């Protein structure tokens, strides 16, 4: 077991980081913010901790926390500008600001420009990434089960209804956007300490597309969606690695088209829910006693929602 883990450690760590970026996209999508800025925030998180730990000798944990804070502050400032927009304009706005951030990193001296930062201390363990992901999931579940979750959902589904009931939609979207930026920065910081070398060119469109695919397959309804989809698709990717990038990308493209056509809501789509309900009913029939299912009134369990 331990041997297997040692052998696959790098893959697992990278997978966890990609999952975090997927979650960052999900968090924004969940509040109806079509954000394409996560890769930019990832760069901010990565560069903050890289510079602080290599040039100023900060301990790694402080570097990572600073990365998260800087990412959050930047997301807030960007949010002030772009959250006035909606739909495709909002998506383009976030994308433009993220690209501008990466170009800024390339252009200035203190980041070493296009050369990137090397010899970043490698201190991040799998436990740290996994712990971060767990904390995030707990936070998301707490939000989901509170009136904040209901409000975020309403802001996404019908902004006007939310406003009409006194929900400050802009504030909720800002909250989600900042959280999304912080999570992406965290992922970027972890990645910097994992690979020990970063350069502006690694925060590219391909990375964004991959994370976006995971997020869209996962759906916007529940945090478990992107988690499951990232898990499955990363495994699929690793499995098919030997077949070459071309075939892999082709497979991903086909998958994305199929998902958009068959289950536009991703794993949270109601068709998936119907299949799940049907499977559960069919599989559990032999074990069920008493009257037929439709005769029994199901116990309402709203606390699970």
């Amino acid at each position, binding site marked *: 077991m331990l041997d297997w883990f040692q052998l696959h450690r790098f893959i697992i760590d990278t997978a966890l980081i990609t999952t975090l970026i997927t979650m960052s996209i999900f968090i924004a999508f969940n509040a109806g913010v079509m954000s394409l800025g996560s890769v930019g925030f990832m760069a901010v998180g990565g560069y903050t901790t890289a510079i602080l730990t290599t040039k100023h000798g900060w301990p790694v944990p402080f570097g990572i926390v600073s990365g998260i804070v800087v990412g959050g502050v930047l997301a807030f400032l960007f949010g002030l500008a772009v959250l006035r927009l909606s739909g495709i304009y909002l998506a383009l706005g976030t994308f433009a600001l993220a690209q501008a951030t990466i170009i800024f990193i390339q252009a200035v001296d203190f980041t070493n420009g296009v050369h990137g930062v090397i010899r970043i201390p490698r201190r991040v363990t799998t436990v740290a990434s996994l712990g971060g992901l767990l904390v995030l999931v707990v*936070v998301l579940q*707490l*939000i989901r*089960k*509170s*009136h*904040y979750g*209901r*409000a975020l*959902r*309403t802001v996404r*589904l*019908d902004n*006007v*209804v*939310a*406003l*009409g*009931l*006194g*929900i*400050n*939609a802009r504030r909720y979207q800002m909250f989600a956007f900042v959280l999304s930026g912080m999570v992406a920065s965290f992922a970027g910081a972890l990645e910097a300490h994992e690979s020990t070398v970063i350069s502006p060119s690694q925060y590219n469109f391909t990375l964004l597309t991959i994370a976006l695919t995971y997020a869209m397959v996962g759906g916007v309804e529940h945090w478990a969606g992107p988690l499951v989809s990232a898990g499955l698709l990363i495994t699929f990717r690793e499995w098919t690695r030997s077949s070459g990038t071309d075939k892999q990308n082709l497979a991903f493209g086909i998958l994305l088209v199929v998902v958009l056509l068959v289950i536009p809501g991703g794993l949270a789509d*109601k068709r998936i829910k119907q299949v799940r309900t049907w499977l559960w009913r069919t599989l559990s029939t032999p074990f069920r006693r008493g009257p037929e299912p439709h005769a029994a009134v199901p116990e*309402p369990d*709203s606390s699970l*929602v």
Partner: protein
Amino acid sequence: MTAIDEGTAAAVDAVMPLIEVRGVEKHFQGVAALVDVNLDVFGGEVLGLVGPNGAGKTTLVNAITGYIPPTAGTVHLAGRDITGLSMDRVARLGITRTFQHLRLLEQSSVLENVLLGRHQRFTVRPWTMGRTRVRQEREQREAARALLDELGLAALADTVAAGLPYGVRRRIEIARALAAEPRALLLDEPTAGMTPGDANDIGELIVQTAGTGVAVVLIEHNVGLVTKLSHRIAVLDWGRVIKVGDPGSVWDDERVRAAYIGGVAT
């Protein structure tokens, strides 16, 4: 019911109107949707807002609720200037509305929809843990259920809204607005497309609501129903209030008849 009966009259605050609309205008690129609208709405009354299609009824509701800012004029709520405030702030100050086209969260349960109306009653933060959090969620769910019970919707609390009949869904939308415990409720054609039976049920609910002291503005095309339910009726035509009066006499006015029949107003 042409005159305000005694029970309701007591609830009407005769001294000061709850909503004061003064000189409100709204222009859409040169098209005047509202022209110098002056209107008072009192707590505890049902004010019928009628007029031909395109008269500006919905625009007036939009201007009061902050959905669109008026081009000119002021709106006061209980003496406080709310002109140009954002829609959510106006809602938090106590004006809730329903929409001409139903806007429910279709995939959510009836209870979830109504709970949304109680959003402002929650004080816990996402990180609040333990009993306070659980208790508050339970209290608000109970309050929402109690409201559903009052409106005869208790049995449907855990049903998904999408599959329910139209009349019931309209009722849920009103329930959601009432859950916010508003001081003023603006209903945009709440009985449109309903059977007469369902429409009467909604009518009863509207009268009951006004009976608790809420100011109700009712946009309604059904002349019989709006005459029956309203304490006063305001008639809009081409963005102007052409008549405000009691439901018995308002239809006798020449200009009102002209507006409806399509003659030239004098």
